[in-house]
């Protein structure tokens, strides 16, 4: 199989590249065509044309007043994801390292994990008057359990043999954490961050509906009031694109920080 691939002349390799590119865009192309076809038969309030959506995206990107709303929302997301790392990593480490911490913290984390996002929104409205605090609180509550459990799994999956090796050299507890545990657990923190970006982008708007006077949530609310479906979709596409870009950003950082892991996937 691989022999054939190596021997393959350049043109056919080019064709394979084209086929792969086609495969990547095909699902979206089909979706777009279906949407565009639907827009011919339904009113724009239900299925606005792709052109309209594109125009709205352009408007958002070129109007500072609107663009800034988007940036505010993404800043809130980033802040919440980072804060969840700061809170979740120590919790996960403690759970992984000490039985007592695990026994105590696990039920709490599980409990928090079971609370639906919308319930948090209602709770924070009653608890806090500051809008930023409300949003941050909701997002952090949704993200911290994921970080904690990922890091916990990381600690538990450390090779016992490496632990023995480090201890054989007389490492103290602090040295063990610094030299073995943390470098190892880092990759799990990256996984948690990627999961939380998806988590945050899916819930940030819900959190913003608690009365934020800035942000994408408000923009969507305005668009909803005038049944501007094209605008709703434009914001939606932008949010998806930003989530993907943020994930790629984290992955790029991961490749630098965890260079030793190399590239697992054969991309040739």
């Amino acid at each position, binding site marked *: 199989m691989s022999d054939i691939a190596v021997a393959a002349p350049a043109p056919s390799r080019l064709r394979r590249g084209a086929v792969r590119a086609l495969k990547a865009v095909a699902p979206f192309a089909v979706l777009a065509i279906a949407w565009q076809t639907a827009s011919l038969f339904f009113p724009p309030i239900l299925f606005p044309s792709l052109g309209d959506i594109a125009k709205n995206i352009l408007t958002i990107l070129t109007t500072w007043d609107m663009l800034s709303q988007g940036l505010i929302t993404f800043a809130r997301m980033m802040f919440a994801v980072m804060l969840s790392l700061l809170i979740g990593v120590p919790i996960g480490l403690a759970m992984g390292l000490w039985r007592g911490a695990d026994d105590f913290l696990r039920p709490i984390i599980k409990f928090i994990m079971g609370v639906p996002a919308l319930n948090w929104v209602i709770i924070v409205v009653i608890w806090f008057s500051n809008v930023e605090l409300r949003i941050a609180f909701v997002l952090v509550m949704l993200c911290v359990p994921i970080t904690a459990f990922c890091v916990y799994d990381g600690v538990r999956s450390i090779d016992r*043999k*490496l632990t*023995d*090796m480090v201890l054989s*050299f*007389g490492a103290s507890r602090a*040295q063990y954490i610094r030299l073995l545990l943390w470098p190892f657990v880092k990759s799990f923190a990256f996984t948690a961050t990627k999961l939380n970006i998806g988590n945050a982008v899916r819930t940030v708007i819900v959190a913003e509906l608690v009365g934020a006077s800035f942000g994408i949530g408000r923009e969507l609310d305005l668009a909803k009031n005038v049944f501007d479906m094209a605008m709703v979709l434009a914001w939606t596409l932008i949010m998806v694109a930003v989530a993907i870009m943020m994930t790629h950003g984290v992955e790029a950082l991961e490749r630098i920080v*965890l260079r*030793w892991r190399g590239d697992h996937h054969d991309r040739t």
Partner: protein
Amino acid sequence: MSEQSPVKIRVEKAKKSFIQKSGGAVEAIRELTFDVADNEYVAIVGPTGAGKSVLFDCLLGLKSLDGGRITIDGEPVEKFIRKKGRIARIFQEDRLLPWLTATDNVALGLQIQGVPEAERRERAREWLRAVGLGTFTEALPSEMSGGMRQRTNIARAFATGPEIILLDEAFSALDEITAMRLRSDFRALARRQKMTFLIVTHSIDEAIYLGTRILVFGAPARLVHQIAVPEGASDSPAEVDRIRSEIRHWISVSGRDASTAA
């Protein structure tokens, strides 16, 4: 030889058992007594599960005995290891940290000792050169062959300048040609450094080649027999044959013993 040199390691009536999760007790070490002289090279052979690795854990202070005692230089193990880097272990698998370069892996023990970065990296590079990896100082473990990783592992053990090195089947996972070269390199380094080492091995030839004395263990760990290996014995086929059959005899005796005890 062991009569003239001072005693380095003394194991006296050591006992160690484990309570398993199922509730049953497993005896790992049963009344083990032996001495190791300073600069002596002791090879330990014995059946699997005889508590040899557990003995090494106890020598490193990672596990404590249930009874008896182990002293090094006349002081209890716990006291001896308080100054880090005096005793090192070479494992069967290389156990390198995958995110560190060869240099940083070799420097690990020094780092734990608190040696400043520039100095420990310099010493690590020297040791990499000593084991023939002078051009691979910045390679990651994933970029090295099994033999190269094991060389790095050996360099790491020597780097802290230990008085004692414990080798737990350090060459068993390698192909025979690589193992042969590493054994002779190891022996040369150990002689140069003036040190004591204990090697656990399943290879009788390896025991004869590296050891100045061979201890035959029974299971659970206890001394069944010991044989002095005369200087240059590994070069004389007749000597090797004699020692080999003597060890075989005692292993088979200890094996029967273990099976009747079980």
